[in-house]
């Protein structure tokens, strides 16, 4: 496949189609509506399921129903829509069925605005719905990476029978850049044995998250936690840049992670030994590696388009082994290279004292 100039929202939607997406349910919301628009034509052309739901509440429950059929299913939304989906997400998690949800984050709280943001980190990583569960959360930093992560998201969702979120933002959704789409994959025809597709020649299947007995529900939770531990052991992903000799470390994900590669280069030009760690999974989080690096560097700077949400995970991982500073912009403001660079210089001075 050749590289093309692609808009992020269209790119991830088309990547899903090529990864064998069988059903999409969604509700328009800026800044990701182009994904829904793209799929509204593509899915029907290919004789697959597309439906514009009456709300995000309905959309996620349609996803839940389709996921029960064992098909590759996805929805995409942005902050306010994601908030509405948390009910269904908890049920999907409790039922242990695979589904992919893409949140192209925008400024909040409330109606906020439609500019890029990373303020849904807590919502996606920590409180994705009621009850004890964790989805896998992937964090792309470019159009190419969101394309690649869509394929990975389906793979992981089906491997572990779990929810996978992609934590994008308005910038990745709206920007156009050169990227390569995967080849068209065939749609899987067979359905998994656990799916509710009619009890033909077998005992009925039940997909459920209701367990009235406390012990029975605790057992379900223990099984779920065991699975999450398994995911934690195998699926932590991150990228490191120039960490070998680094004595200052930038930690950032998504769009800000990408901006920080420029910050790092500029800082190095000034003779500062700056490295960058960019988490590609927000859950599970690269805590051990950050802990290790906390023993190597003089200080860390976490940068986010939020008031400091991933910051808490970095602080937890560093566990006091080095100072952890924070720089954040909110409300849809994207931090610029020189702003972050100034913070790096400040950090350098502080830890040199």
């Amino acid at each position: 496949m050749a590289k093309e100039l692609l808009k992020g929202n269209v790119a991830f939607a088309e990547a899903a189609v090529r990864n064998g997406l069988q059903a999409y349910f969604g509700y328009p919301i800026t800044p990701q509506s182009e994904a829904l628009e793209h799929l509204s034509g593509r899915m029907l052309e290919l004789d697959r399921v597309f439906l514009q739901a009456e709300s995000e509440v309905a959309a996620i429950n349609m996803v839940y129903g389709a996921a029960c059929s064992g098909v590759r299913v996805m929805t995409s939304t942005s902050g306010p829509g994601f908030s509405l989906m948390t009910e269904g997400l908890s049920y999907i998690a409790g039922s242990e069925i695979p589904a992919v949800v893409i949140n192209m984050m925008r400024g909040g709280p409330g109606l906020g605005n439609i500019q890029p943001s990373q303020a849904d980190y807590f919502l996606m990583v920590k409180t994705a719905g009621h009850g004890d569960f964790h989805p896998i959360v992937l964090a792309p930093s470019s159009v190419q990476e969101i394309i690649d992560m869509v394929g990975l998201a389906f793979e992981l969702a089906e491997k572990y029978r779990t929810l996978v979120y992609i934590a994008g933002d308005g910038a990745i959704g709206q920007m156009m850049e050169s990227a390569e789409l995967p080849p068209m994959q065939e749609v899987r025809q067979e359905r998994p044995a656990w799916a509710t597709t009619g009890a033909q020649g077998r005992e009925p299947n039940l997909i459920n998250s209701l367990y009235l007995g406390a012990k029975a529900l605790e057992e379900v939770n223990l099984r779920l936690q065991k699975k999450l531990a398994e995911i934690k052991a195998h699926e932590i992903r991150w990228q490191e840049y120039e960490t070998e000799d680094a004595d200052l470390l930038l930690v950032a994900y998504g769009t800000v992670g990408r901006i920080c590669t420029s910050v790092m280069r500029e800082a190095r030009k000034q003779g500062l030994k700056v490295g960058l760690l960019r988490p590609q999974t927000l859950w599970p989080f690269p805590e051990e590696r950050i802990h290790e690096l906390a023993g190597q560097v003089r200080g860390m700077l976490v940068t986010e388009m939020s008031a400091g949400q991933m910051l808490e995970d970095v602080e937890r991982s560093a566990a006091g082994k080095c100072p952890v500073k924070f720089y954040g912009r909110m409300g849809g403001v994207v931090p610029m290279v020189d702003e972050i660079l100034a913070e790096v210089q400040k950090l350098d001075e502080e830890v040199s004292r």
Partner: protein
Amino acid sequence: MTVAVKIPEDMELIYEYPEAMTTTYTHYCPGCPHGIVHRLVAEVIDELGIREKCIGVAPVGCSVMIYKYLNVDFVEAAHGRAPAMATGLKRTNPDKIVFTYQGDGDIAAIGIAEALHAANRGELISTVFINNAIYGMTGGQMAPTTLPGMVTTSTPFGRDVRLAGYPVPMSELLAQVEGAVYVTRQMATDLVSIRKTKKAIKRAFMVQLAGLGYSSVEVLSSCSTNWNMGPWEALEWVKEKMIPYFPLGTFKMTDEVKALKVK
């Protein structure tokens, strides 16, 4: 707990569990019509020979555990979301029969949007809707279908329509939308009405089999536990008090639906 059925050799078997029903004891209160309506659904499934094609969507409410009693594939929806879940199931299994079984709180309060939109899209699903004018499972609070003046655990002075509005005429609302092709209100209080209800449920499933559109059967039902009445008194109360607000009848039946021969 399941029922052990042993027929003495000198007796003829004239009545038995439908294949679509399990032999598990239900958890319903004495006098509750849920078990009757479950059985009607099971009989209809057997008669239409669709047991292996059926996917049921259970609600939140007293019938939350209907999946224990019907011998078909089942999913358990969040409160009110059964029509959305059924939509996801049906769209990805167009050759299967998908039905929701919902209570009045589920369909007419928290899930009214999902129900009306599924109906409006003409989703090829069937809904059995039990209206007993109260929230049973949570302990007798006001339902969207609670009658004016009716005392519940959340309307201790009776439902005051100035504060809490009026009983929601769900079937009348569903009948308004183009995609709904069969919408009827029946009751399950005596043999005659139970037979009529069964026929309506059968027609609703046949509507889906024929791919005609959305179909819904509301069944007026009693809740002697939360109405604080004996079972017989409660059944009488359905006829005397509920019917004036919820008249029986068919609110929508297109010509195609009318043409279906329901035996």
